[in-house]
């Protein structure tokens, strides 16, 4: 994949500038969103109250929007834009212009939504929850974020298409292929949220229609809400599959299997939204179970991924002369932040994935649904596996883009940062899991529920969460220090953009993997299969619609 690589080894400075623009917004969102997260854990410990009439649910909304939508989308688009530029060649001026338009649309949308949250006009959480009715500017702002991300993603697709045209019959560079899979999945998934916002929430919040169909809105939202988490995860997988092997000095275990697993994610990430709606009325239990089965299909590419990664590690270790069953672990580069930071994220994905299986297990969801267990779960998946990998990526990508070096001191600080994060998360997410099993609800301010004994038993866990939240906030300060150093102050130099090579270069990936008509066709068929009949049922048997409420 990097046979014609000499000219592409460095990301063009014009492309670097657009990627960096994304990262400034992403890390800005991390700073503010992180502070909001800290405040939430402090409030919920019962020892602290918010000053100046700021509402708990206002900062909760800000935390969710900034971390779940802004940090992730901006980081991912910035990373993928650079990865495509690095592996498929510099973006054309037209693609770059498209990228900038997307970036500014997303930024404008973020500001609109942010201002409405600050004014307390939109404390509806990023999951919307109609018939709670936010200000229409909030909905319009988030529409701009989504539409902006489509335009932004189009830039990657344009450059990929150009590469395919110039290299007929050749499999595309692995990182570009993966970036395009993720972008395509994102576009298909966001159609759902775009539909509920444009056809339901915007006309309703503008007063053009009086009522909203709540279940239709929720179903459209969750059609988007689960692939959203795979949109976060796949860039981390890009790093694990295609970047880490190069960092440790090994090879990609199998280029073809990596592509196959991404295709499976494209197919099975979307027709699964009902597993977020398992305890809801109005949806037939047989259709819920069908989507549970489809949900579990992603376990297959996850198992493939786990196998490939550890196979890469072991083969590298043995090539260095390691012996014994686990001797290869010892020779991995534990002192290299570019490796160990994503590795901690990778290891966290084992318990995180296991928790996810519980959540999606049909009736088992009743034990944990909307308890703080779920919050603990996605702070392991998104806020540890994904985010630590993103931090690890930025430690080489930011200096690569700014023409600087990751110094020894920053490398060390990066490793410290990851351990601080791990310890903070063990406290916070661990306590959330245990409290959730006892029934403690998520998305709730401090309460003793009329001095109920059950609720009093939850308080020690809430204090542990505040301890964890405080440690994590220190972690956020550290990562911001590193980011600013690498963006502005680190010494000038060359930092590598590592791109792994497959172990077996003779074995070319089958061209069928690049057949988008085929994969999009299967994806569409699965979506129609999983959603058509239940969606018609929901509409045909709909109760009277709901008018808007502002209960905050």
């Amino acid at each position, binding site marked *: 994949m990097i046979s014609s690589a000499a000219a592409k080894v460095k990301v063009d400075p014009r492309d670097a500038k657009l990627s960096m623009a994304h990262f400034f917004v992403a890390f800005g969102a991390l700073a503010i969103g992180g502070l909001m997260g800290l405040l939430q854990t402090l409030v919920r410990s019962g020892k602290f109250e918010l000053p100046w009439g700021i509402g*708990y*649910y206002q900062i*909760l909304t800000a935390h969710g929007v900034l971390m779940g939508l802004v940090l992730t989308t901006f980081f991912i688009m910035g990373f993928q834009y650079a990865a495509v530029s690095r592996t498929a060649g510099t973006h054309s001026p037209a693609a770059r212009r498209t990228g900038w338009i997307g970036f500014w649309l997303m930024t404008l949308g973020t500001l609109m939504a942010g201002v409405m949250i600050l004014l307390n006009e939109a404390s509806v959480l990023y999951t919307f*929850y109609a*018939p*709670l009715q936010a200000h229409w500017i909030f909905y319009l702002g988030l529409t701009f974020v989504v539409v902006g991300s489509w335009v932004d993603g189009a830039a990657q697709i344009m450059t990929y298409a150009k590469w395919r045209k110039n290299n007929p019959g050749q499999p595309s560079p692995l990182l570009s292929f993966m970036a395009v899979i993720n972008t395509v999945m994102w576009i298909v998934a966001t159609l759902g949220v775009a539909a509920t916002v444009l056809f339901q929430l915007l006309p309703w919040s503008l007063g053009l229609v009086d009522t909203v169909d*709540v*279940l239709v809105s*929720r179903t459209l939202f969750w059609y988007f809400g689960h692939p959203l988490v795979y949109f976060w995860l796949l860039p981390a997988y890009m790093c694990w599959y295609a970047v880490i092997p190069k960092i440790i000095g090994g090879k990609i275990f*199998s280029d073809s*299997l990596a592509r*196959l697993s991404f295709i499976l994610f494209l197919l099975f990430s979307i027709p699964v939204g009902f597993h977020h709606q*398992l*305890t*809801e*009325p*109005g949806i037939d*239990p047989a259709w*819920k*179970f069908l989507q549970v*089965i489809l949900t*579990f299909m992603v*376990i*297959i590419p996850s*198992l*493939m991924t786990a*196998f490939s990664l550890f*196979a890469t590690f072991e083969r590298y270790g043995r090539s260095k002369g390691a012996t014994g069953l686990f001797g290869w672990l010892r020779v991995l580069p534990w002192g290299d932040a570019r490796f160990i930071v994503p590795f901690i994220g990778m290891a966290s994905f084992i318990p995180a994935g296991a928790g996810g299986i519980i959540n999606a297990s*049909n*009736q088992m*969801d*009743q*034990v944990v*649904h*909307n*308890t703080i267990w779920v919050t603990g779960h996605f702070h392991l998946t998104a806020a540890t596996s994904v985010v630590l990998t993103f931090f690890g990526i930025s430690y080489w990508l930011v200096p690569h883009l700014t023409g600087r070096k990751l110094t020894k001191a920053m490398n060390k600080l990066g490793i410290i940062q990851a351990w601080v994060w791990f310890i903070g998360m063990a406290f916070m997410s661990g306590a959330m899991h245990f409290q959730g099993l*006892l*029934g*403690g*609800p998520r*998305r*709730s*301010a*401090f*309460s003793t*529920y009329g001095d*109920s*004994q*059950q*609720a009093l038993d939850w308080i020690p866990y809430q204090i542990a969460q505040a301890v964890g939240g405080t440690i994590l906030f220190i972690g956020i300060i550290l990562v911001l220090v590193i980011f600013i150093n690498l963006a502005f102050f680190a010494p000038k130099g060359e930092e590598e953009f590592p791109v792994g090579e497959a172990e*077996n270069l003779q*074995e070319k990936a089958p061209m069928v993997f690049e057949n988008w008509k085929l994969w999009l066709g299967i994806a569409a068929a699965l979506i129609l299969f999983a959603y058509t009949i239940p969606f018609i049922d929901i509409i045909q*048997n*709909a*109760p*009277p619609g*709901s008018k808007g*409420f502002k*209960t*905050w």
Partner: protein
Amino acid sequence: MHMHKFEKIWLIFGISCLVIFLTVVGVSAFYMGNKPPSCLTTIDPEKVDQTKPFDKPGLHKVEGKEWDYELVYVASAFSYQPAQVEVPLGAKVKVMATTKDVIHGFEVAGTNINMMLEPGYISEYTTTFDKAGEYLIVCNEYCGTGHHLMFSKIEVVK
């Protein structure tokens, strides 16, 4: 496309576990009746107070049904009707709930009763209260400023 022998073994093992697991969950749900709450009955959310059985929230003894009692709840921001109820130990109870305004949660902490209440829909779950003591009902779905103040209590008595 070549697949390593160990990877084949790994995937066959993993996929077999998956099939067994899903079979267990499916048999439990559809053969043994442990489906998650999925009531399909609708209601006009503006006329909850005039619609049976929600015109009379609380515990009602019933005859000739599979369950002994119906426990009827009406949720609205930020309270449940009734706010306190006593249930006899060992009673088989059908919990029926709905909301008059926004989405609420209905979770009896420490039990498997956990369902979403959505405007226009009735949520139901049938269960047996086989342990005495006080149980807290919490709203576990965000509903507004007073979300964390929304609760009710069930006393299971001998």
